[in-house]
C-alpha cells in the first residue's frame, strides 16, 4: 500500500523540464531543431509522392487513337548543362551556409564578430541558384519543352519548381537573419534562426542532388 503526502515540496525540482519561463539558448535551439526535423519529414513526404508519381507515370503506356494501340509517350528531356553549374553553386552555398552557421554560434557565445559575411554570401549564392534555375526553364521552353509538352517535361518543371519554392523560403529565412544582424536585435534569436536555416539549407542541397540524379539518371 502506498502512502500519499499532501505537503508541497517545492525544493525537489528547481525547474520543470519544459523550462518555459526563462528559455535557455540550448533549449530554444534544441526545440527549434526538433521542430525543423519534424517539418522536414512533411517535406520528404511531398517529394516521395512526386517520386512515386514520376515512376508510375514513366512506366504507363498510353492509348494512341490513330493506331488504337498502347504506346510509350515518355520522352527523355535533355537537361540544359546549366543545371550542372547550378548544382555546383548550390553545393558551394552549402559550404558558406555552414560557415555562416558556425560564425553565428561563435558570435553569440563569445560575442566576437568575424570578418567575412558568410550569411550574405549564402543569400547571394542562393539567389544565383534560383536565377540559374529560372534560366534553365527559359532554355527548356526555348527548346520546345513546356510544362504540358510531355509527362517527362511536366515532372522536370514540377520537381525543380517545388524545390525552388522551398529554397526561396530558406532565402527569406536568411534575409530575416541578415536583417536581425543589421538591426542588432536579439543575437540569440538570430543565432537560432541561422542555425535552423542552415540545417534547412543543407537538406535542400541534399534534396536537390536527389532531384538532379532522378532527372538525370531515371529519364
Amino acid at each position: 500500500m502506498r502512502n500519499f503526502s499532501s505537503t508541497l515540496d517545492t525544493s525537489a525540482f528547481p525547474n520543470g523540464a519544459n523550462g518555459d519561463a526563462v528559455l535557455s539558448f540550448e533549449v530554444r535551439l534544441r526545440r527549434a531543431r526538433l521542430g525543423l526535423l519534424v517539418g522536414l519529414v512533411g517535406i520528404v513526404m511531398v517529394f516521395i509522392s512526386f517520386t512515386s508519381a514520376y515512376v508510375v507515370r514513366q512506366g504507363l503506356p498510353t492509348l494512341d487513337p490513330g493506331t488504337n494501340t498502347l504506346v510509350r509517350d515518355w520522352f527523355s528531356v535533355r537537361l540544359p548543362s546549366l543545371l550542372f553549374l547550378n548544382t555546383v553553386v548550390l553545393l558551394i552555398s552549402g559550404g558558406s551556409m555552414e560557415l555562416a552557421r558556425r560564425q553565428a554560434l561563435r558570435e553569440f557565445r563569445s560575442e566576437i564578430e568575424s570578418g567575412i559575411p558568410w550569411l550574405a554570401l549564402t543569400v547571394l549564392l542562393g539567389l544565383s541558384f534560383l536565377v540559374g534555375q529560372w534560366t534553365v526553364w527559359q532554355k527548356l521552353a526555348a527548346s520546345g519543352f513546356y510544362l504540358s509538352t510531355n509527362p517527362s517535361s511536366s515532372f522536370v518543371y514540377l520537381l525543380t519548381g517545388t524545390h525552388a519554392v522551398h529554397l526561396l523560403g530558406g532565402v527569406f529565412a536568411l534575409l530575416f537573419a541578415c536583417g536581425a544582424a543589421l538591426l542588432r536585435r536579439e543575437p540569440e534569436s538570430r543565432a537560432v534562426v541561422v542555425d535552423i536555416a542552415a540545417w534547412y539549407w543543407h537538406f535542400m542541397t541534399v534534396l536537390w542532388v536527389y532531384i538532379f540524379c532522378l532527372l538525370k539518371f531515371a529519364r
Partner: protein
Amino acid sequence: MATGEFAGHLPHAHAAPQGFIRKWVFSLDHKVIGLQYYFLALTAVFVGMLLSLLMRIHLIWPNASLPLVGEIKPETYLSLLTMHGTIMVFFVLTTAPQGGFGNYFLPIQIGAADMAFPVLNMLSFWVTFLAFVVLIAAFFVTGGAPLHGWTGYPPLSALQSAGTGQGLGADLWVISIALFCLGALMSALNFITTTLDMRAKGMSLMRMPLTCWAWFITAILGLLAFGVLLSAGILLLLDRNAGTSFYVPLVVVNGQVAAHKGGSPLLWQHLFWFFGHPEVYIAILPAMGLCSQLVSVFSRKPIFGYKAMVYAMLSIGILGFMVWGHHMFMSGMSPYTAFAFSVMTMAIGVPSAIKTFNWLGTLWGGKIRFTPPMLFAIGFVSLFVSGGISGPFLAQPVLDIPLHETYFVIAHFHLIMGVASIFGIFGATYYWFPKMFGRMMNERMAQIHFWVSFVGTYAIFMPMHIYGMAAALRRYSQSTEVAYMRDLLPWQQFITAAAIVTIAGQFVFLFNLFWSMKYGKKASDNPWEATTLEWTTATPPPHDNFAGRTPVVYQGPYEYSVPGAPRDFVMQTEPAMEKVSH
C-alpha cells in the same frame, strides 16, 4: 484548487496580450487557438448537417423545391454531397478533436505553458480558416460547387468541362484542400515537438494521459499523410489549369476529345487513399484517447491495460498506412494485391478489439458515474463496435465489390468514422466545458441530447446497412425512377425521418452550449474529481496555464481507487511515498 506539487514560481515567456485583436483574434495562446478551432468546427458541422438535411429531404421528395437551393437537380445533389463530405471530414472530424481540444489541452495535460511554436500555431489556425472560407466560396461562384465527391476522383475532378461546378468551384475545392493540408502540417509539427520536448518534470511518455498519446499519434499520421494529399492536390491543380496529364487519360468529354492523354486516374486514387485511410484514424484516434480518459475517470478505476492502449493506438497508426488499397478493390486491382490489402485491413481488427475489451474491462466492476461525458463515451464504444464490425465485411474484396457502390459503405463509415468521432467531440465538450468556461453544462439538456443522438444515429444507419445490402446505390440523386429502388423507398423515408429528429436534437446541444456559458452552474476547479494536470490549475486556466509555476508529476494519469490514498483519486502532481506502512 491547485492540488499537488509545483517546481517553483517562474514568470511566463511572454506576457498575456492586451486588447481584443491580440487576445481573441490573432492570439498566440494555445487555449484561444483551441477555441477558435472548436468554433470553426462547430460552424462547419452545422453547415455540413444542413447540406445532409437537404439531401435527405430530396431523396424522399425528389421534385420538391427546397429553401436556399430551390429544385434540386442531379448536379445540385452531387455538389451538396461533395461539400457535405469535404466539410465534415476536413473541417469537423479533423479540426475539432485535434485542432480544438488538442490545442487547448495537450500543453496543459503535459504541464507546459504553451505550444512549442505559438506563432506557427496561430498561423495554422488562420490558414485552416482561410481554407474553409475558400471552400464555402465555391457555392457562390459561377457554376457552383463541384460534383466530384469528397474523394475528387479524376477525370471528373480534373476537367473543367466535365460538368457544372467543375470550373472555378472545383478549383476552389482543390485550393481549399491544399490550404487545409498546409495548416494541418504546421499543426502536426507543433503537436509533435510540444509532446516530445515540453513535458513537465516527471511526465514521462508512459505517464501521459491517453488523450495526449492520441493527439501525438494523430499528429504523426497527419505529418505523413497531409504531405501526400498536398502533392496530389498540386498535380490535380496543374492538370486542371496548366494542361498537364498526370491523371487524365485520353478522354472524350461532351463529344469532344479533351486536350490530355496518357495520365492515370488510378495515380490519384493511390495518392488520395494513402492519405485517405490514415485520415480515418486522424478523425477517430483523438476520440479513442478521450474515451479511454472518460471511461477511467467515470468508472473510478485505472484504465485497463494502459500500455496495451498505447501500443494498440501505435499499431492502428502504423497499419493505417498499409491498407489504402482496400478503397480501390473496384479499380481492377490484381487479386494478389487485393489479398494483401485485405489481410492488412483485417489485422487492424486486432488492436481495435484490444481497445474495445480494455474499455469494457475498465467499466467492469467500476463505480460508474453516468455523467453526460460518460454517456457519450459509452455511446462511442457502442458506435465503434457497431460501425467497426462491418469493416471486416468490406475488407473482403469479394464482398466489397458488390457492396462498394451501395449505402452499406455509407452506413459503415458514418457510424465508425463520422458519428463515433462526433460522440468523442461531444464527450470532450461536456467533460472540458467546466475547465474552458468555468461553468457546468446543463445535465438534463445533455441527457436529452445524448438519447436523441444515440437512438437517432442507430435509427438512421442500421436501416441504411440493410438498404445497401438490398443493392440501393449511393450517389444517385433519385431513387424513384428505378423499380427495385422505388420499392425500397420506405427505408429512405424512415431514415430521413430519423435524420430530422436527430438533427433537431443537435439544437438542444447548441442551445445548452451557449446557455451554459452564461447561466450554467459555477464549476469548481476539479468538478469531475479527475487526476490529470488540467484539473490542478484554475478554472478557466490563466494565460500561462499554471500561474507562473511548473508542475512536477509523480503519478500516472489514472490513479483511481488507489488503496491507501485519502481520496478515491490521486492527482498526478501528488508526491507518493513508496514506503509501505504495513
